[in-house]
């Protein structure tokens, strides 16, 4: 609580008038509302969450899956997150009590046998009550099914759309029926069936599992599979809702040609604010926001977009938002992870030039 003098301090001016000097009030440190830390003592049991990371971070679906486990776990059950791929972010707000990271099991590489062996080793060592995985197409859905098929004594459910401590539910018969069952041991969770927001924080301690280190060190994927590499298809061929990198234009973009060449240089899809669309600069199907499309790109570069609430609603699932804006107090700046204040045209031109140089350098190095 802040305690302040209700009367503003004043002095008397030369003319004998009360004078209040308007200055900013002393900076009172408002206590940051920390979430209570939930610690699990004497935990006997484990709930295991397995998920691949992307670029060192977990996506919303993976975080929802950890949150699901955290909500389910009681005071004596630890949530152990087994992260496949490198992890550069903190998971205390995600709900994990303990983390094992296996950076070499990156989703970009196809090594199902090795992955299955590694997770099986962890399962063997901690004997989790339940195993949660996001049922996604970046590897967890596939790995989860391999796990289920390899452990036929465990009960399992996939594409779970609803669950609590007692039951799971999913759609069956081509989505025409909703079916319910008791909580199985392995649960592959559909996206958005859990709110990832938790009112508590967890310790998220990293632990080194010797079991897994050994497993992964001793095994290489010399088996039936050979990974020939990941590729990306042209941004122009992806629907805006699916796009991973979006460059988006607002009122502040005067020169659409420059904007389009920047998008091309970044191999990004094109979006626009309502104002830019109404202005006739872009087609209606490019509009992003509450009255347009909702996007979930990893990178959203907003150029000259002030960020009306409607627009911000359309990009709430975007991971990294970068803004180029002339007004540092625009709502977009508060939303963005990085904002550069300046003339959009000039910065776009410079970016295009720098990207060209960078690509050329990379080519030369490769050659």
């Amino acid at each position, binding site marked *: 609580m802040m305690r302040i003098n209700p009367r503003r301090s004043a002095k008397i001016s030369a003319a004998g008038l009360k004078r209040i000097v*308007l200055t900013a009030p002393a900076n009172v440190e408002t206590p940051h509302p920390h979430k209570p830390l939930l610690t699990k003592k004497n935990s006997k049991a484990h709930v295991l969450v397995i998920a691949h990371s992307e670029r060192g971070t977990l996506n919303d679906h993976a975080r929802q899956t950890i949150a699901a486990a955290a909500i389910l776990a009681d005071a004596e059950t630890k949530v152990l997150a087994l992260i496949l791929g490198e992890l550069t972010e903190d998971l205390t707000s995600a709900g994990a009590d303990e983390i094992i990271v296996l950076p070499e099991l990156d989703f970009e590489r196809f090594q199902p046998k090795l992955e299955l062996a590694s997770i099986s080793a962890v399962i063997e060592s901690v004997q989790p009550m339940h195993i949660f995985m996001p049922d996604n197409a970046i590897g967890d859905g596939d790995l989860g099914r391999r796990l289920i098929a390899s452990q036929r004594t465990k009960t399992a459910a996939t594409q779970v759309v609803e669950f609590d401590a007692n039951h799971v539910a999913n759609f069956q018969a081509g989505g025409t029926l909703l079916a319910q069952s008791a909580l199985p041991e392995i649960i592959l969770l559909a996206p958005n069936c859990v709110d990832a927001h938790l009112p508590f924080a967890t310790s998220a301690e990293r632990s080194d599992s010797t079991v897994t280190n050994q497993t992964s060190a001793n095994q290489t994927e010399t088996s039936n599979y050979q990974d020939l590499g990941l590729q990306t298809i042209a941004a122009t061929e992806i629907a805006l809702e699916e796009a991973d990198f979006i460059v988006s234009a607002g009122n502040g973009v005067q020169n659409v040609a420059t904007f389009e060449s920047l998008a091309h240089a970044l191999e990004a899809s094109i979006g626009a604010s309502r104002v830019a669309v109404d202005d006739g600069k872009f087609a209606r199907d490019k509009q992003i926001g509450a009255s347009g499309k909702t996007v979930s790109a990893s990178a959203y570069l907003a150029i000259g977009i002030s960020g009306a609430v409607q627009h911000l609603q359309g990009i709430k699932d975007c991971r990294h938002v970068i803004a180029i804006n002339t007004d540092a107090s625009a709502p977009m700046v508060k939303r963005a992870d990085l904002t550069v204040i300046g003339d959009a045209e000039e910065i776009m031109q410079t970016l295009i030039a720098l990207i060209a140089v960078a690509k050329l350098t990379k080519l030369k190095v490769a050659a």
Partner: protein
Amino acid sequence: MRYPHLFMPITLGKLLLPNRIYSTAHAEVYAEVGGMPGERYIKYYEEKAKGGLGMAICGGSSPVSLDVPQGAWKPVNLTTDLVIEPLAKLAEAMHRHGSKIMIQATHMGRRSVFASDPWPHLVSPSGVREPVHRGNAKAIEIEEINRIIRDFAAAAKRVQAAGLDGIEISAAHQHLIDQFWSPRTNQRNDEYGGSLENRMRFGLQVLNTVRDAVGANFCIGLRMCADEFHDDGLDHETLKEIAQAMSESGLIDFISVIGSGADTHNKVANCMPPMALPPEPFVHLAAGIKSVSTVPILHAQGIRDVTQAERIIANGLVDMVGMTRAHIADPYMIMKIRNGQEDQIKQCVGANHCIDRQYSGQDVLCVQNAATSREATMPHIITKSKGTKRRVVIVGAGPAGLEAARVAAERGHEVILFEKNTSVGGQVNLAAKAPQREQMAGIIRWFDMETKRLKIDRRLGGAADAAMILAEKPSIVVLATGGSSHTSQVPAWGVAEGLAVSSWDVLSEKVAPKKNVLVYDTIGTHAGFGTADFIASRGSTVEIVTPDAKVADDVGGTTFPIFYRRLYAQGMIATPNYYLERVYAEGDKKIAVLRNEYTEILEEREVDQVVIENGSLPNTELYWALKERSKNRGQTDIETLFSAKPQPALSQTLTTGEFLLFRIGDCVSMHNIHGAIYDALRLCKDF
């Protein structure tokens, strides 16, 4: 199929509706003496029916009992059989266009003012006072409970007799039924208080009696809140329990859900979310109610766009969406959707001009549509003139000039629109600069697109002078040149000397905000606070000084709380009741001398910058240059103007070189956006 979910029919009880959009019950403030819906009321709804709306619920807070004062918001009076005939006319008008109509019926309990005819003693479960309406009340007695239950049934029978399609019983906004539900207002220890079951007793008795009165086939809905947002009130989980019990009672055919309580100023502002709030802020609460309900869930609040509405229905969050303000802005919304003219929909921007007027007891008007609720005299659809095709020159592309250009072009005339700035919009562009008020620009965006669609000859980026105008050989000249910041009124403010700057200079970013800023606001509307907020949001320390009783005094009940949230959150200092006497410099500081309204005592502020908002002064230069040359000497005949008839001057035949001159909006005297647009519409509709 476009909007397949929105245009999927739905059945409420036995009532089949063609689509998922409806207009929610709101206080129109149009009822005539004795609480009777008259011509204006009926035409207001009929226009929505013509525009394709499937269902409207009219008569927000229509009282069923005599002890609800009827003076304050001109509600529809359901306490007398006299209401049946006018309601029957309303029903007939709606049904003629294929629309369904229901009415809300309620007892407001303590949520009213005693100091209005018939000066009743308000009743409430425990007599707890309501702050917003200063609703002092007595604790209700069992006999009164029984009387009111009978009143509900009698009112429902009247509604049914009038041929309406249903009735919505309100248990939202802390009306009497939810005053019983809420522990905040119900501290009784008889069978109507204590346990949730006891607290629900009154509402269920009402519904039972109403159902008995109207029979099984008549549609009955219940409007309820999904979270009062009070610590001592009803939270979402409790309201879900109530909703489940109500829906499972088999007595109701739908539940219409609203987020937020409404019994404090700050909570009222949520109910009709203004532009500062995100889109559909409370739909998740409505979805929560839906998860336990066995009857369809209807929900409004911040749903203004068809794509947004389609998404909400498609995601199964609710069963129907209320788009009430959207229909106030454009009653032809659904027809335009059907015609593939979504871009021509005049979209609500959430300025809340409508509801803010209603909260001060004035009739509901739309900030951007002057025809709304004036259907008897003002057209929503402008038809082509059958008379002479004229050459109309309009000067100034603010809201008045844009509306004039649009209407004249729709009438089939050749229109030339001059604007000195490179973009249209006038002062609204400044209004849109204030934080969380960006959507004001939506008003202009529509005019911008419409004037382009109508292929109006828009000459932007150069001020027109008399010679340029005459060179166009116009038969009509309409001046809508607006005004300029009126900082010259008190020379001692020192604007000419650079001691103070105008709010316009700050909003237009001609002048950068300094560190410590005093904003002086003599007007008390959105502009002054918006300027202060604009400065504060850039990190400056701001004091708002005003001679009014409070800061933003002329801003309505759903907008000032938003301003005050920002005022306190940003540590702005509010200093009402002071005049700005003069400003002088002391070193690099500015000293503002203030005079208290009530003591006349002077005091000073030492700041870096003084910003003045004193409204606008009409730009009349062009008017005086053209007045003498015009056939009508620049005069608008107010008798015909106010009675919505054509200007007499229009029937004169003009020889070559002769023209008529009119002026509208702020270039006559300072008005507001609605005033500017109304000026333009009522003048130009007969061109």
